[in-house]
């Protein structure tokens, strides 16, 4: 499956190998990996927990992927997003796009990430060492970035 929402970690190298294996029309693969940043202050370790909306999330990701495939000439693309409890440094998301054309790979990968950020139903909550929880707030700049794709069209 080229759109997956899963709890378990993914092996980036294996995923990308599977993506382009045997397709010699591919000239370039752009892969973006999102990692859990350490948001803690004073060196305290925090964890991140991701919640999602089963079935709607996958639908939205499929839709974003389809839009990218319509807009750019892609040979293959892949979205993996994790949910559940993650520690700093862990992989959250992988978006990979493969094309004969390097710019198409770069742009479509960024496009998918930008829309995933603003459209895919995931919510992050941070837990600090004392068990205090805080929902991560959406950033307005992410909406501006995503809307720029429509303007430039």
């Amino acid at each position, binding site marked *: 499956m080229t759109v997956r929402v899963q709890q378990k970690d993914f092996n980036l190298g294996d995923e990308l190998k599977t993506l382009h294996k045997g397709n010699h029309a591919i000239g370039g693969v752009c892969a973006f990996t999102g990692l859990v940043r350490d948001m803690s202050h004073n060196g305290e370790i925090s964890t991140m927990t991701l919640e999602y909306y089963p079935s709607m999330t996958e639908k939205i990701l499929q839709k974003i992927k389809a839009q990218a495939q319509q807009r750019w000439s892609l040979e293959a693309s892949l979205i993996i997003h994790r949910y559940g409890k993650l520690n700093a440094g862990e992989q959250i998301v992988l978006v990979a796009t493969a094309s004969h054309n390097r710019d198409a790979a770069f742009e479509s990968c960024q496009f998918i990430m930008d829309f995933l950020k603003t459209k895919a139903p995931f919510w992050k909550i941070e837990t600090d060492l004392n068990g205090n929880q805080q929902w991560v707030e*959406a950033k307005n700049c992410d909406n501006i970035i995503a809307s720029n794709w429509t303007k430039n069209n």
Partner: protein
Amino acid sequence: MKILYFAWLRQKIGFGEEIKDIPSHVTTVKLLIEWLKIQDGGYSEAFKDISAIKVAINQEFANFDTKINKNDEVAFFPPVTGG
């Protein structure tokens, strides 16, 4: 009607999913919110600032004026923060 709540909406309401019998005059998302707010429970607290709330009907993004039917799956959640 199946109603889902995510993230801090789920926390404030106390559960993530419920099946509710909705009166016939509740025909839009906005009217559903107004009706929920007068029910017992965490609804009035959860829906205090609806500018911070997104809605999906049958797993498609919708808005507060969108019409709803009793067989719909309506989901309320804060702006998404994935990626």
